[in-house]
């Protein structure tokens, strides 16, 4: 008895939806898939992407159906998940971790009708675009805050791996500090891991011992901010507003936002205007910003940060604006010029004022 009933309702449903299309001319909702590398939690990389997905789903309403799969390891498992999305008729798939690059490209060749967008990678195809965020713009602004709050003129930077992405952040942060405090220096410790709270804490402790009184990090846990709170110094968070992990210590955080971008891209696909390209958005695109600044920071500094943020937004200022010298004193960016995107993306040097030697 149940089966015919089900069939009947399915047929009716189909007829009704066809009638709907005829009446309004609206197409089927676009199915949009998201692949996440870590669990959705209260802070961090994946949390920011999930927030973006929700904003997009809310903005586009019944024109989209979204679905995500979290904790997908980079590699073979990722390929299976991405392929499943494509096979299930998803029109657009966002793959949100660097390690999904090759699986995305591989699956995209088999499913030419599905559009793919891969975050932080550099391989594109007819139906694969890439996108990333200019974190360094936020890092520069955070540097201004840190530089004005440091009494020892030393910041500590807990970093994962010496790749251009991370070096851009360290250098921009240091230049930001120096813009308000010419004596400011940055000490860097490499943990060789994106996610090991124990090591991040240890590195934070060492930096404090070495004289740093403001810490920041390019790793994924909240351990550095928590440790700064315990040690009575300041910290700048990363990814999300981490103030609840260190209400006193948390000066601000460099945060990234994907909601507008996801909405825009999805709309393009719906309207058939999508093309494969690389999007590298910063403050102007609303993809990077600072978390609310700690009330302990002087008003004139907050105002200065707002000014610089505005200047970056309207293009009158670039964090890597010459003259910029490297650690050895060699001129890297001549006065009156700014660095090209190409040079940024292969950065492998420290600016003057970063202490320690860059590991090779």
């Amino acid at each position, binding site marked *: 008895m149940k089966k015919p009933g089900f069939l009947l309702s399915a047929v009716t449903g189909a007829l009704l939806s066809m009638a709907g299309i005829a009446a309004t001319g609206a197409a089927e909702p676009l199915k949009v898939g998201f692949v996440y590398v870590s*669990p959705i*939690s*209260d*802070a*961090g990389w994946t*949390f920011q992407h999930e927030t973006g997905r929700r904003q997009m789903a809310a903005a586009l309403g019944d024109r989209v159906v979204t679905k995500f799969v979290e904790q997908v390891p980079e590699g073979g498992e990722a390929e299976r998940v991405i392929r499943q999305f494509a096979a299930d008729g998803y029109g657009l798939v966002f793959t949100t971790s660097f390690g999904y690059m090759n699986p995305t490209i591989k699956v995209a060749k088999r499913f030419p009708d599905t559009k793919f967008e891969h975050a932080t990678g550099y391989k594109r195809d007819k139906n694969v675009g890439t996108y990333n965020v200019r974190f360094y713009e936020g890092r520069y602004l955070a540097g201004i805050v840190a530089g004005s709050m440091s009494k020892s003129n030393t910041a500590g930077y807990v970093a994962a791996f010496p790749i251009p992405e991370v070096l851009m952040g360290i250098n921009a942060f240091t230049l930001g500090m120096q813009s308000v405090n010419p004596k400011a220096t940055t*000490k*860097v*410790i*490499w943990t*060789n891991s994106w*996610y*090991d*709270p*124990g*090591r*991040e*804490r*240890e*590195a934070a*402790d*060492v*930096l*404090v*011992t*070495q004289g740093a009184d403001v810490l920041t990090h390019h790793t994924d*846990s*909240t*351990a550095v901010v*928590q440790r700064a709170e*315990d040690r009575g110094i300041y910290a700048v968070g990363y990814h999300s507003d981490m103030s*609840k*992990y260190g209400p006193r210590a948390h000066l601000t955080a460099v945060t990234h936002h994907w909601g507008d971008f996801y909405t825009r891209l999805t709309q393009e696909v719906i309207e058939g205007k999508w093309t494969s390209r690389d999007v590298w958005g910063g403050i102007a695109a609303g993809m990077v910003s600072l978390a609310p600044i700690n009330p302990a920071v002087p008003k004139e500094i907050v105002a200065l940060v707002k000014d610089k943020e505005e200047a970056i937004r309207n293009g009158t200022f670039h964090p890597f604006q010459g003259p910029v010298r490297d650690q050895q004193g060699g001129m890297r960016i001549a006065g009156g010029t700014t660095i090209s995107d190409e040079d940024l993306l292969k950065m492998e040097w420290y600016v003057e004022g970063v*202490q*320690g*030697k860059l*590991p*090779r």
Partner: protein
Amino acid sequence: METATAIFLATLAAGTPLVFAALGELVAEKSGVLNLGVEGMMIAGAVLAFLVAAETGVLWLGVLAAVLAGAAMAALFAVVTLSFQANQVAAGLALTIFGIGASAYLGLDYTGVALKGIGPVDIPVLGELPVIGPLLFALDPLVYLSFVMFAAVVWFLYRTKAGLVLRGIGESPASAHAIGYPVIGIRYLAVLFGGAMAGLGGAYLALAYTPLWVEAMTAGRGWIALALVVFGTWRPGRVMLGAYLFGGITIVQFHVQAIGIDLPPQVLSMLPYLATIVVLVLISRHAGMIRINAPASLGMSYHPAA
């Protein structure tokens, strides 16, 4: 001086989870049972410690939950290997894999939850003494507990009759059985103790060292604890020293980096593991050293009726 103090304190903290887990494993191995599930028991302790502390707001209930979780995992291992005579190596490995998976599942909703962890104790007068005040009287309570557990393990193994019996069982379960000791029962207790201690190590990580929960946050420390027992040639004192040595290597590595000495961090990251291999090679060349301290029946199943 300040740097030396900082290295000392950081080393104590980094070594503490290893001290707990390695001492527990030492007792289990002294009774002749090789439990390779330390990593799994530790992570089970870590997740339950965090979960219970976050839900109840009482940190010490979290510690208690970790002890019970570690012991429960150990009980699973004990039933399989002691009652059902399964292979200890296979069962231990399975326990680790199970622990990592189960903890990730249990902790799903707790990733990124903020928690005020166990801080250092505040002892008036003593804690304010110059130099030795911060070094000895302002540590966190679990570090003191690790000292107490160390003393208790040494006292138990070498100063009590029960300890002698346990070591005897590790040497020759058949002889102990012949004299009338309950071999299986005592091994059960030793394994449970090992699990409880591994759980404590996990609790230290999740509540004191880095008060947060992330999947696989023990990051191989259970394996280091296992290596430490061999590294310390089954002597509690050496195991404890080894724990601080291994904990301290990372700290010293970071200090070297911050000072700016040009040594690839990758090489420094390998050091604890290299040190383990070197010690393993060194002690295997002195067969006597192993024979004196290593339990003769380690890893072998024993069935009283056989």
